[in-house]
């Protein structure tokens, strides 16, 4: 069971949240100019690192707000959680 800290509500059990996949995936700036391959990248391809990963979670049974978590996918250690308008701690997007 992961213990995840909501930036607004504090630490809560994993069961209070839903997972939203990779964070910091921007919508294409010029959608009309994208090739099929670029659309495929945007729609279907996400990072899948073994190690630190910035990902989205929503506090479904709490404040119902989205936020970001930096978590190690090998150790499951939650390294940081932060609001969507904040940059990834330590850089690298």
């Amino acid at each position, binding site marked *: *069971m*992961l213990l995840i800290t909501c930036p607004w509500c504090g630490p809560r059990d*994993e*069961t209070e949240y*839903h*997972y939203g*996949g990779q964070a910091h995936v921007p919508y294409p700036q010029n959608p009309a100019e994208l090739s*099929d*391959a670029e*659309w*495929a*990248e945007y*729609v*279907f*391809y*996400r990072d*899948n*690192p*073994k190690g630190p*990963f910035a*990902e989205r979670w929503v506090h479904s049974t709490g404040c119902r707000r989205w936020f970001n978590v930096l*978590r190690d*996918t*090998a*150790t*499951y250690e939650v390294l940081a959680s932060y609001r969507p308008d904040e940059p990834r701690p330590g850089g690298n997007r």
Partner: protein
Amino acid sequence: MTAEPLPEHPDFLWRNPEPRTSYDVVIVGAGGHGLATAYYLAKNHGITKVAVLEKGWLAGGNMARNTTIIRSNYLWDESAAIYEHALKLWEGLPAELDYDFLFSQRGVLNLAHTLQDVREGVRRVNANRLNGVDAEWLEPDEVAEVCPILNVSPRTRYPVLGGTFQPRAGIAKHDHVAWALARRADELGVDLIQGCEVTGFLKDGDRVVGVETSRGRILTGRVGLAAAGHSGVLARLAGFRLPVQSHPLQALVSELHEPVHPTVVMSNHVHVYVSQAHKGELVMGAGVDAYNGYGQRGSFHVIERQMAAAVELFPVFARAHVLRTWGGIVDVTPDASPIVGSTPVENLYVNCGWGTGGFKATPAAGWTFAHTIATGEPHPLNAPFALDRFTTGALIDEHGAAAVAH
């Protein structure tokens, strides 16, 4: 009734050779798919200068961590074709490999608990029959005949409204399957090399020419990746991306019991799947944990929900004790179908994305992947499962349709 005894093993299974400096083909991953690929490369294509590299021990990843269910009741034509090919191969493999791996065609029931489940199930039965896959729709009283310990009372929270049944489906003893394939591949000249992690790829321009490993550099003409949950990690080492996400998938077994459970029961809606192993353990699985992970363990609440569902469906399980839980790492694609074929790197091929369903596909994955590696072209059965479907949009959307949630 008593549980079946396990068959004796042959004394000799495979050599443990030192890696040579070069091979015609290097397969990364000595799980079921990697071993089956090596076996069919040698048997079907006469390519025997093959190394299968395994970072851990042979068949110690998902091959040792699954619920051993074999079935081919998939919705879409492409999926039915490849899984049914696998099932037909399963039916001949114990004799072909001369190894009793306890392939038991005890059938698989997929339960329906809502009107929509019923409609989906009936549709899938019809689709299966059109594809030559054995399938029946059973009403609740017929479900109870197939599996008498199942609670089909209308007074449960999610009553059983019926189910699909594939009589030819079943289970096999997973470790023995791996050892059977390993022994034959070894006899045909394939080097199975354990404790040998691939740490990088040697390339000449866009073409792969070898691999860097924890036991030195190995040159090769062709490389096949068959590393399941770690396929994304390997692809990144090789300089390309795969549309896969790695998730923990948990399962558990009970202590040993007398034979009580005559078939395999799966429920997508309350989400548990149960069979009884040959020795007597009740083997149970659920869905993947939602988050990405490589830790070979998952969350307790997933086990809790799966157990709650199991006890409601099988009141007789209420006093069974959990003996062991474990997790595998599965690579899930956006359309819940595998990727088998070429990659942006020339001569580097990938077999991945089987998600929660890799074990049942083992022989067909090996058969088609060996064909692709040997000829450089897709086999008709794996052609629809090419990586470029995510660009063309020709997805094979088995989410939900595959009779199990991912």
